[in-house]
């Protein structure tokens, strides 16, 4: 079994520092890896990135991150990426990494992702150049992650994004802004590789648990959603199940309880996790 810790949207800066670090002591006892799903900074500056690096460096487990829209605000995403990598944090963008962990080979592919919306209410590459560019950006990022995810030679595959792959985890956000919160392209990419888990952030007012149409469990790990330093999800025997997909799994996910916030050592078993959540 692999224990995946995750959090996002920490929005660190000189005025908000040490939010997570005090809770990371001993994380290796509870998790095998920590995923950061973007918006690590508030304004996307390199000064803030130093704070992020100090917060998450040398915590005893590998740290894998994607950037979020806030991390792009100052057009310093490349510098931010280099700084985080210098601190030992893997930053993914249309790329993947395989970690050899005690419980098996964990493959993580990631992208910031982008908006566009969800089937029935989504944008398309039509009309004005700005609209085409918007949707094309979203599609290209998702396609790159899909390719990286499928190429992973791993026992378990996790799709790590900032924007949401599904609408399930946006419940609580105003429906009008769903197209700015995620894109089904990301779910399609995760499903194309039959990923065991999709982790995202961005939707502060959303909810934690959802599932892709193909049955991949989706977790929104935005700090304002979790309200704790990180959540842990278990993959493998006794861990998160891949739903069978389709309407049945979506229905199960919709009626589930907060217990599916799989705490350390509280692995969900079978479909029960979804039934309870």
């Amino acid at each position, binding site marked *: 079994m692999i224990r995946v810790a995750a959090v996002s949207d920490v929005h660190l800066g000189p005025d908000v520092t040490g939010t*997570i670090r005090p809770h990371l002591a001993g994380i290796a*006892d509870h998790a095998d890896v920590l995923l950061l799903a973007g918006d690590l900074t*508030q304004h996307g500056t390199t000064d803030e990135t130093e704070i992020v690096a100090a917060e998450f460096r040398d915590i005893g487990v590998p740290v894998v991150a994607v950037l979020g829209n806030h991390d792009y605000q100052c057009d310093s995403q490349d510098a931010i990426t280099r700084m985080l990598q210098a601190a030992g944090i893997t930053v993914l963008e249309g790329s993947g990494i395989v970690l050899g962990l005690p419980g098996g080979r964990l493959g993580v592919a990631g992208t910031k992702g982008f908006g566009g919306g969800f089937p029935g209410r989504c944008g398309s590459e039509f009309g004005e150049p700005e609209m085409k560019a918007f949707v094309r950006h979203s599609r290209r990022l998702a396609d790159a992650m899909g390719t990286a995810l499928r190429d992973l030679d791993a026992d378990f595959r996790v799709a790590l994004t900032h924007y949401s792959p599904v609408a399930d985890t946006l419940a609580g956000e105003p429906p009008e802004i769903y197209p700015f919160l995620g894109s089904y392209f990301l779910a399609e990419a995760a499903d194309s590789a039959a990923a065991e888990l999709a982790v995202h952030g961005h939707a502060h007012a959303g909810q934690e648990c959802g599932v892709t149409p193909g049955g991949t469990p989706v977790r929104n790990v935005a700090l304002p959603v979790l309200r704790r*330093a990180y*959540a842990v999800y278990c993959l493998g025997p006794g861990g998160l199940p891949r739903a069978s997909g389709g309407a049945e799994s979506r229905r199960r996910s919709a009626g589930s309880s907060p217990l599916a916030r799989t705490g*350390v*050592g*509280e692995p969900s078993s079978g479909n029960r996790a979804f039934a309870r959540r």
Partner: protein
Amino acid sequence: MSDAAPQAALLETMKKAADVLHRAGIPFALAGGCAAYARGGAPSVHDVDFAIREKDADAAAQAFAAGGMTAQRPPEGWLLKAFDGEHMVDLIYRLGGEPVTGELLGRAEELEVAACRMPVLSATDLVLSWLRSLSEHYADFTVPLSFVRPMREQVDWDLVRQETAGLPFARAFLVLLEGLGVIGAAGTAGGPASPDYLAGRIERALAEDPRTHELGICVTVEQGVVYLRGEAAGERRCQLIEDVARQAAPGLLIRNEVSVIEVQPPRTQEAGA
């Protein structure tokens, strides 16, 4: 006895004083209730006010004396009083505490008042002069309200809000004007109230201002009050959100209900527990 006779006499005094200033080449503009009248207000004139620059006060006093009107400087230190028989003219060089400048007089427009053309302070400067005069000792909204109603469409209300953002009595008066429907919410320049546009503008400011970059704050405007709701990562950010919103909606009351996200420890119970 009807009011018409004293009104007419006051307007005669106004014309006479304007003539004195004009002949002496002293820059001036009509202010106060007469200016409100010139801009469409009711002819309920109780005094005659002119704005002049302080450096012209002595020349003005001499010109009035030469014109047969006595002039004196009362101890207030911001005006000169001239007497035309029993009628008094105030020659004000600090208007609502602000010095009368060439720029202020330059913004005045030539209007016809009681069949006589003379410079009249701009509607925005007039409103500012009244709002800046409000204080604990003079918080009567009735008179400025009667002045403002007929000229509301001539006033740059966004500028008035900006200029009076730090004046509680002025802000209270603006809230009253909104409540009475005399003016719209900030950003609507006296047009139909559209709090939605204002809320949109504040939300954009919160997202785009480099001090905040906050996307998740819900902004609503109700009865001239801006409500900010949501969560931020720290105390200072809650304050910055309020600062940016205040700047985007000058003069409006802000209710900041943004709270700080409390981060709990992760769950650490062991397997099988």
